[in-house]
């Protein structure tokens, strides 16, 4: 009895390590998931510094520079490192009535760091007009357009930065709302069982058996035209969360059901702990890792929902900027074919969706190494 095996020691340590620590240890082993997490973090850094990373006011429209193709940055000038772009002038072709742009290699516009541009509040409270890059002292005509401009001559790069803020926070807010509903209803369902459980289960089944996009479209179409951007923003998160909670509720209920049978819950019950205490002190901590994984996996669906709605013109409306709003300009083949750079706003959608999926998958594996 008294012999100490080295193995017993390390088992002890694993036991003491706690849910989150264990999860982190296992998560680290999924290299793809770790990379995906870094990508997600990078995106949320963009959310924080969107205006800093933008260099032109994303809502400034200029008819004379509409649908300008991307301007490549040239890094060297006569063998010297000196990033610059060529000046571009546009003219309307009188036969096709399209604007054509000519770049002038003799007129170089140097690209500088931390230049002054439009005014904004960094992190929402620090007034500044510094931007990461830009053209020093640029008037609108002399600015740069890394990813070209859209129909109304707005800079695509700057708009993507600001759109990232909208689209990614919508995803988070919608998940937060779903999580509250899901944990509450799933918890009630799983903990109490009985008729309450049946009722909630049927509700979930019904909600899940209705095609989401038509339903969302129907609800979003009813948003009054005169609502402000903020009102529509929250209305959309609510519409999305009304369906989104069902998946999380199922997860929570499943966990509750399997936990109810576990020894430690029985033990706590026998020891006379109150129900509330059992739930919050014992049960929720023991499956919070699963909930984190499930919530992460449901973020992309929420982001895509907003993108799809806005793309169809039923979600956010200009002057709000989101990925979906930007994609609205490529509704048909002609638009895509003429100005393919407008498709770049699809890139962050795809990258973020993939990153969240990989990250969530890694989290799920880490939370439940023996599960599916």
């Amino acid at each position, binding site marked *: 009895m008294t012999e100490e*095996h080295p193995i017993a020691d390390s088992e002890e340590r694993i036991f003491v390590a706690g849910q989150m620590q264990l999860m982190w240890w296992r998560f680290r082993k999924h290299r793809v998931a770790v990379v995906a997490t870094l990508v997600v973090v990078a995106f949320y850094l963009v959310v924080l510094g969107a205006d800093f990373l933008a260099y032109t006011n994303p809502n400034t429209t200029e008819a004379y520079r509409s649908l300008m193709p991307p301007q490549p940055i040239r890094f060297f000038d006569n063998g010297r490192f000196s990033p610059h772009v060529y000046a571009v002038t546009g003219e309307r072709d009188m036969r096709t009535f399209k604007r054509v742009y000519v770049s002038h290699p003799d007129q170089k516009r140097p690209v500088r760091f931390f230049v002054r541009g439009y005014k904004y509040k960094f992190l929402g409270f620090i007034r500044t007009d510094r931007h990461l890059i830009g053209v020093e002292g640029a008037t609108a005509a002399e600015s740069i357009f890394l990813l070209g401009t859209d129909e109304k001559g707005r800079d695509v790069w700057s708009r993507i930065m600001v759109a990232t803020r909208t689209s990614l926070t919508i995803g988070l807010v919608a998940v937060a709302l779903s999580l509250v509903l899901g944990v509450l209803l799933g918890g009630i369902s799983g903990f109490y069982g009985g008729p309450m459980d049946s009722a909630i289960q049927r509700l979930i089944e019904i909600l899940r058996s209705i095609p989401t996009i038509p339903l969302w479209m129907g609800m979003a179409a009813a948003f009054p035209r005169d609502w402000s951007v903020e009102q529509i923003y929250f209305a959309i998160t609510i519409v999305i969360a009304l369906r989104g909670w069902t998946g999380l509720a199922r997860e929570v209920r499943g966990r509750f059901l399997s936990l109810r049978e576990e020894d430690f819950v029985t033990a706590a019950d026998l020891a006379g702990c109150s129900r509330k205490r059992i739930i919050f002190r014992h049960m929720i901590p023991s499956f919070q890792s699963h909930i984190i994984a499930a919530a992460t996996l449901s973020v992309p669906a929420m982001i895509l929902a907003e993108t799809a709605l806005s793309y169809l013109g039923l979600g956010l409306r200009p002057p709000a900027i989101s990925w979906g709003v930007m994609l609205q300009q490529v509704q048909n083949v002609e638009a895509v074919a003429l100005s393919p750079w407008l498709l770049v706003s699809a890139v962050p959608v795809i990258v973020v969706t993939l990153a969240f999926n990989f990250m969530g998958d890694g989290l799920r594996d880490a939370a439940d190494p023996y599960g599916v």
Partner: protein
Amino acid sequence: MQDDRQPILSVRNLKTSFFTDEGIVRAVDGASFDVHLGQTLGIVGESGCGKSVTALSILGIVPRPGRIVEGDILLRREPEDGQAHEIALTSLGDSSSEMRSIRGAEIALVFQEPMTSLSPVHTIGNQIIGAARLHRKLSKQEASELAVELLSLVGIPRAEAAIDSYPFQLSGGLRQRALIALALSCDPRLLIADEPTTALDVTTQAQILDLLRSLQEQNGMAIMLITHDMGVIAEMADQVVVMYLGRVVEEGPVDTVFGESKHPYTQSLLRSIPSIHSTPKVQLPTITGTIPHPYNRPAGCPFHPRCPDVIPGVCDKHEPELQSVGDEHLVSCFLYHPVPETSP
């Protein structure tokens, strides 16, 4: 016991390991024993000591990431023209047609869990017929008649109806009987029964053991009975192999092993069976400590961290080997044979 007869199956120095991401699990680590026709060999040991893996190794169906790394498994066939025919199972490819023609036909397996050892969405009859027709040239009709016959042989009531039932419609005991019928479908000469009774209640357990014994009397097959229950061994086995952490620690005829057990592990296993002679209300002795983690087995004698008779400086440095201590009685323990001289 019967020296004049050759064993039907000989296992020599079998080593099977699982190569997992976390490390190598030496599930079986040098096991040797013989099985004779008409006799029952009992293999006993605590959970995780490699009993099931030994069975799977004999059949050549060790799942990935495991494989047999060393050792021989010899199967002897009936002497034809006065000459015994030997096949080294380890030299056959796991999925070779020769190996497959031995599996089920000559060596059959009744696996641990009656609840899940039959497919839940196929009828009992379907599964037995499928197995029988793998090795025997039978029409569907004949196979189905055979299935009914087998089911009544193993004592399933109303066998004609039972072949059309699904496993979930049968009780655990009946399911185990159906599984035995399936194993018998090709008249194997060796039946490996891996804990056939662990999941059953005591009465059913006794019935299944009776069934196995009477089947053996009828067709003279050899049985390799795997269990962790010394009581079952006492009742059923002719020969006993005691395993600890993938190794054979003691081996011999059942009376010898029970009567004059030598290895401290066997002794403690025996002490932990309740007997009608033990004083009531006195706690049964248990084996101290727990089974070491399979990834890092102790150096020296694998039992030394838990052994009451451990010889410090010897048992934790050297590995004992299985050596004879009497008539057919083999033990692997330094209490009974000298320590190797090459001490570090």
